[in-house]
């Protein structure tokens, strides 16, 4: 694990193909693969930087991983980088999913197809949980203090997963409190 992002994408083409490759591995969602590629394989981001970028992507409206690609690309190569990363992430998968849609009608009733979809869905759930577990060490080094950070994580989980509150309420409610405490603790 590199302490800081010593390595960086070589060019916009590098960005395009990296995001293309990670999108094509991303069955059931891209986030788990993005973490693996950008943090663990390429070392372009530290765990901490990845979580911070992800936090921004989630607070801003729009698809999270698309926002992540925009922010990441923009940081290294400006607008061209942002569009290279998003293009890499979307173009080929879009063609594939359209082809699948066209073919799906013929096979939708087949139990093997619906079974396979269920199996892939279960794995997708496991991948997200694993990604969350991997990012948890970021809480331990939080400037909020590890205990407070864990409390805010737990509150977010409970309000979203159990109480099923709309995300906007949760972020608008908990976010300002967490930010205010963090602000007060920083000198």
């Amino acid at each position, binding site marked *: 694990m590199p302490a800081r992002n010593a390595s960086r994408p070589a060019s916009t083409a590098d960005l395009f193909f990296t995001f293309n490759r990670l999108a094509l591995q*991303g069955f059931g969602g891209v986030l788990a693969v993005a973490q693996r590629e950008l943090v663990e394989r390429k070392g372009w981001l530290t765990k901490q930087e990845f979580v911070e970028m992800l936090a921004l992507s989630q607070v*801003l409206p729009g*698809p999270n991983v698309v926002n992540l690609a925009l922010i990441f690309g923009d940081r290294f190569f400006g607008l061209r980088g942002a569009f290279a990363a998003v293009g890499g992430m979307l173009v080929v998968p879009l063609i594939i999913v359209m082809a699948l849609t066209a073919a799906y009608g013929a096979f939708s009733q087949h139990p093997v197809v619906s079974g396979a979809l269920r199996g892939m869905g279960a794995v997708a759930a496991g*991948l997200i*949980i694993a990604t969350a577990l991997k990012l948890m060490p970021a809480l331990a080094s*939080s400037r909020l203090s590890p205990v407070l950070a864990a409390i805010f994580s737990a509150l977010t989980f409970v309000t979203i997963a159990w109480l099923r509150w709309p995300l906007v309420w949760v972020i608008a409610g908990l976010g300002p409190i967490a930010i205010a405490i963090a602000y007060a603790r920083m000198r």
Partner: protein
Amino acid sequence: MSALAHPVLPMADLLGLFAHFLVLSLLAIGGAITTAPDMHRFVVDEHHWISDDQFSASIAIAQAAPGPNVLFVAVIGWNVAGPLGALATMCGTLLPSTALTLVATRWGARRRETRGMRAFTTGLTPLTIGLLVATGWLLARPYVGNDLRALGALGLIAVSIVVMLRTRVSPMWLVGLGAVVGALGWV
């Protein structure tokens, strides 16, 4: 039904579809999937452009295919009005959020080292991690039951988590495993 024989939508309706997704884009805090209930209300309940089953299948196909889950928006558009429909929903979903994300991150990047910005990202990091756990939980819930297939699904979820944490295997292989196990009817 062949998905290729999609209905031809009048231009006014196409524009209406585009406009509706434009508005939803800016409401999609936490990801495009958070606006799925309102997309459902618009294209299924209000306009009867596609059926309930087509709507659910659209999300399942996009999840099973490689690439970001936001592509379900393109599948819905395709099912409503073919390639033009996909173009309308995808552009509607991406344009506003992309513009806002770029403006906001550039504004933020210039202030990255200020106390306010650091407090902002520090405060939101725990919420992000809590939200990831919640997403994994909600994705896993449909598989939790008390029959044998639920056992298969939970096993699959557990294996995915362990493999992701302990090895550097690409998540793609796990999804493949999920497809095979699911196709065998064990999930």
